């Protein structure tokens, strides 16, 4: 505000006001839909359907959440996704970090060829069908490991991790360690990893979000419903309009404004909140890491 008052010319003042309005509009457009889902999930479904809910919940109703709590599919999906995310991210880190370190050593000549070997897969791939047949041959279809193994290395994450190791670990440190007799492995475990928590959090989070939001794997490679992750369950409820146990989810033939549809919509708002909440709650704490990742990725490599 002080800066705004210091603006001298009328042109500057006009610019500041314009900027304020534009930024306000951007914020509103970004955040309001998310806020609306939140208030609609606890409002009286009729009030939401008739357009009386705008900025504040109307006639609080927990019906949607009660239905969700009673639905076993969501909790099975939640459990599966948690398992895939935790195991998957652990495997990702165990594979990506040592490889990134090896590729960051400048005296390691084969690294140029190896980088090409990895980077090429970012731009060219075998496509869906050969992948499907390969997973079939490996008996990974309908196997929970399909959520973990094929995505073990993300080449983009490998590249930013390598860039971090290359630019942030002082060469003198490595020289001092070798004089003390440390091998590459020892240096990696004792020095490189403890000094690289920043990048480990970044790619750990990237991998975590990737697993949490993975929908494709479940859709194409898994038939068994008990193994399906949360995103597939969400698809069935949110998009395919599959009936809830109480029958409230069936959108019926009586059109959008019908009684059943209103309750179905409330369940949808609730499901969106329940599934997205972990990410949104963690977000303020994690966002600086995410951003750091983009920066590291952009430096060089």
């Amino acid at each position, binding site marked *: 505000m002080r800066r705004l008052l210091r603006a001298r010319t009328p042109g500057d003042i006009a610019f500041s006001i314009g900027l304020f309005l534009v930024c306000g509009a951007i914020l509103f457009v970004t955040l309001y839909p998310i806020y609306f889902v939140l208030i609609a999930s606890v409002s009286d479904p009729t009030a939401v359907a008739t357009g009386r809910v705008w900025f504040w919940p109307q006639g609080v109703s927990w019906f949607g959440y009660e239905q969700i709590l009673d639905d076993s599919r969501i909790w099975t999906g939640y459990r599966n996704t948690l398992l895939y995310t935790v195991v998957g991210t652990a495997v990702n880190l165990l594979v990506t970090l040592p490889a990134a370190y090896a590729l960051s050593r400048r005296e390691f000549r084969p690294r140029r060829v190896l980088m090409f070997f990895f980077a090429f897969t970012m731009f060219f791939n075998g496509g*869906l*069908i050969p992948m499907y*047949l390969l997973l079939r041959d490996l008996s990974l279809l309908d196997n929970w490991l399909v959520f973990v193994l094929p995505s073990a290395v993300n080449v983009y994450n490998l590249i930013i991790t390598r860039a971090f190791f290359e630019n942030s670990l002082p060469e003198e440190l490595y020289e001092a360690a070798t004089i003390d007799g440390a091998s590459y492995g020892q240096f990696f475990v004792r020095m490189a990893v403890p000094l690289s928590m920043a990048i480990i959090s970044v790619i750990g989070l990237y991998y975590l979000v990737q697993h949490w939001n993975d929908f494709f794997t479940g859709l194409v490679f898994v038939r068994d419903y008990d193994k399906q992750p949360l995103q597939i369950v969400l698809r069935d409820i949110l998009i395919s309009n599959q009936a809830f146990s109480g029958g409230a989810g069936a959108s019926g033939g009586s059109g959008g404004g019908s009684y059943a549809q209103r309750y179905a919509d409330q369940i949808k708002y609730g499901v969106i909140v329940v599934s997205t909440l972990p990410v949104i709650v963690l977000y303020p704490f994690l966002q600086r890491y995410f951003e750091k990742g983009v920066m590291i990725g952009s430096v060089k490599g």
Partner: protein
Amino acid sequence: MTALSPAPARSRPRTGAPVPAARPPRGHGLRRHVRRYWQLWAMAAPAIAFVALFAYVPMYGLQLAFREFDFAAGLSGGDWVGLTYFRQFFDSPQFWTLIRNTVVISVSTLVAGFLAPIALALVVNQVVGRRRKKFLQTATYLPHFISIVVIVGMLQVFLSPSSGLITRVAEMLGASGGNMLGASGFVPVYVLSEVWQHCGWNSIIYLAALASVDPQLYEAARIDGAGRFTIIRHIDLPALVPTMIVLLILNMGNVLNTGFEKIFLMQNPLNLGVSEVIATYVYKIGILSNQFSYGTAIGLFNTLINFTFLVVTNQIAKRVSSTSLW
């Protein structure tokens, strides 16, 4: 080579000369290399193995596009049939529809998704005060982490013709709109929701480029009497050009890579005429109706076009500016 490196890799100074090992390694060539670097090889081995298995073996399976599928032979395929499946695709009645839909969706996403983050970065950069800038930036990239399923679910409840929030706002503003989830609304809804979700995230890198502009430049421009728009036009925008070129090349490599998941989830009988793209068609032909060879051929056609675009754009960028991926 990296995603976003404006400087060619070759120009990097070679610091870190080979460090002499405590004991000079004996033996020659390969023996010596193995003795010295076996630990690095061991560290890289799991990643190499995973990429070889899950990225290169499927590439080997691309030969299926030229062969009959044989259940027993799997990826190696059966009898050689040459370009039969490609011809089948080019002659199929869906061919031009698929190409048109894919190009329309991906080009409009490319253009909007390329320009919006630049505009956003220029606006956010004008905001005075570190914390306010930070808040605006953080808020705008929040949607990036919402899953595609939830995004499409939100679109459906918001655009529902009877009770949707956006439908109602449009009515209040006097637009009748019609069914936004049908054929006419598909492309705009897809593109705008992509921009909504990823604009903030994609602007981070531009903001970083703007943050590194020398403040003396602004000072000098102001003394010379430049207005704020002049400064944006002649200092901020040029500072973004190298980043823009690299991102443009990368995006061009995806020109026929429409987001399968989102389009697939947004498809319904009303909009299938404009929403069926190559990626979703491959899934339906290959996985749902088990025409493995035909599906592979369509997929390969798609990949080759993307790859060509990437290489051509990179070459053009190399000619007209010094920025390129390789």
